[in-house]
């Protein structure tokens, strides 16, 4: 268990059985809340956790900034002649990569919660079953938004200029959030399936590293060997990065957006039910 600073029961006010009895008399129960309401309530829980443990925002602030600086100056000169030119290409890509990488923490938080009894409490409530999971993802959407804003601000400082203007940028981030929400159902599945936090983390790494690096985030895939191109060109992360890059540049890459949304739908359709099956059986 954690730090128990036991203020023992000697300085604890007594239980008042009279007022307790008075509270128990009412047997009326409010009507069942809607699935939207319970999901939002779970989202509120996620925000409260951020409020109490603000350190957890480290991964959505420092980590993206580090990524952006590292890759811009590491590859910039070699790949695009100068970091200033490269950032125009790479910023939307690193934005996608960082946020998609951060999604894996969802699995870890699900797994940590299961270890504690609170999960049993949620599962014994008469509510729409997926709402606890949706709540995690809503809370995470806030984290992804923070990460996106932080990276864009940093990018602007480094000289990134979005041709698509405010609307293009917002559309790009919105698409990124939708994709991340859908993609995260993989992590909720792993969070429920694997036994320890550590195993969730290592399995997530195994999935996330190839998936994000083997894409068009850093370079144009045309210089890659054919077999790799086949993978990269069809990767959901490539479609997402192309869409976000296009939207922020002021284009409307309809095909890429359709592919991205298609992948998102597929992730929810496959991993959503698997997650819920595990959740109900746990």
């Amino acid at each position, binding site marked *: 268990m*954690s730090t128990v600073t*036991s203020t023992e029961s000697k300085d604890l*006010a007594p239980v008042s059985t009279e007022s307790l*009895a008075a509270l128990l008399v009412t047997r009326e129960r409010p009507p069942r809340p809607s699935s939207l*309401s*319970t999901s939002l309530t779970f989202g509120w*829980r996620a925000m409260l956790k951020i409020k109490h443990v603000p350190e957890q925002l480290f991964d959505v602030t420092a980590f993206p900034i580090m990524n952006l600086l590292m890759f811009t100056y590491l590859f910039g000169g070699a790949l695009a002649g100068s970091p200033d030119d490269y950032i125009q290409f790479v910023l939307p890509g690193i934005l996608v990569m960082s946020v998609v990488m951060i999604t894996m923490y969802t699995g870890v938080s699900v797994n940590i919660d299961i270890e*504690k*009894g609170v999960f049993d409490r949620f599962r*014994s409530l008469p509510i729409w079953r997926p709402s606890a999971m949706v709540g995690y993802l809503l809370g995470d959407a806030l984290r992804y938004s923070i990460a996106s804003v932080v990276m864009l601000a940093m990018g602007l400082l480094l000289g990134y200029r979005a041709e698509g203007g405010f609307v293009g940028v917002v559309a790009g981030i919105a698409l990124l959030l939708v994709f991340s929400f859908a993609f995260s159902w993989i992590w909720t599945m792993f969070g429920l399936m694997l036994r320890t936090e550590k195993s969730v983390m290592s399995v997530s790494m195994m999935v996330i590293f190839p998936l994000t690096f083997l894409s068009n985030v850093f370079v144009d895939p045309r210089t890659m060997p054919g077999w790799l191109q086949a993978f990269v060109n069809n990767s959901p992360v490539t479609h997402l990065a192309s869409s976000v890059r296009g939207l922020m540049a002021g284009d409307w890459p309809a095909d890429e957006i359709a592919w991205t949304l298609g992948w998102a739908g597929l992730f929810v359709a496959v991993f959503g039910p698997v997650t819920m099956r595990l959740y109900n059986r746990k």
Partner: protein
Amino acid sequence: MSTHTSGPAIETVGLVKTFGETRAVDGVDLTVPAGTVYGVLGPNGAGKTTTVKMLATLLRPDGGEARVFGHDVVREADEVRGRVSLTGQYASVDEDLTGTENLVLLARLLGHHKATARTRAAQLLEAFGLTEAAGKQVKHYSGGMRRRIDIAASILNTPDLLFLDEPTTGLDPRSRNQVWDIVRAVVAQGTTVLLTTQYLDEADQLASRIAVIDRGRVIAEGTKGELKASVGAGSVHLRLRDADRRPEAERLLRELLVAEVQPEHDPVALTARLGAATSDSAAEQAARALGELTRAGITVDTFSLGQPSLDEVFMALTGHDAGPDTGTGTGTGTGTGTDTDTKDEVAA
């Protein structure tokens, strides 16, 4: 007492749950009358928590049937969830949140509006003596406070059935007494309580009927009186002044009490397990024995009368923890039979 329609609160038939090779719950039959505290007594790993989790719809049974207020726990899980609450063995609240936040969160999930959720949370914190700690994160609570917030979270809506899984394990005696008060207050308002415990005295204090579980099976079921009678009336512990007189005292006690008498490691100590065969109470039997010892000139320094311990219950009922000299009954015939025999005798 109860506000429900007639019929038992819980009814299980041949409930089974296996984890790999282990049959954690191996054919449990229970009938829990509504409006009472029902004790499920057993050692660690007996299958208590697994049984409770199945009844609270958290685990799916591998065999048998379970109904809560007539609703099947698998097919009508949602109806069951609407009427029960569970306080798990480990604090089932969010440690990162404050007491108030936890209660408001759950009240909202149960469908209360923001304002009512806040009022209800504040009222419960007040009744549980937690107002001062309301704004603190639960991870800073003491064991007793955690238990309270946990139970408070379970009665945000007054449940028809409350599961308390070992509610006092690890608590100091004072906190334990307060939890007992809470349980009494809850059941007095008509809620049925299913309480699991490792402690006989806890079941004794609270429950009107008790099921003893061991290795996934119900090995005895009945009222407190019936259960106690099955293991004898209690034990007499004696310390003599003179170790040399012990064999004589042993013989006297055995004759007088029709009891099994055991010398202890301490050369002056003796323990006699009283039988339930006679109509005399344990105290009367013990008083007679003391008188006889005095008449024989054997000085008794200290003397105490104990209730049957859980150990004794298990030895008597199962025999599997008993050493070669113990475990057999005291002339009442209990404890020597198989599980089913014992169960029949107790329930009769």
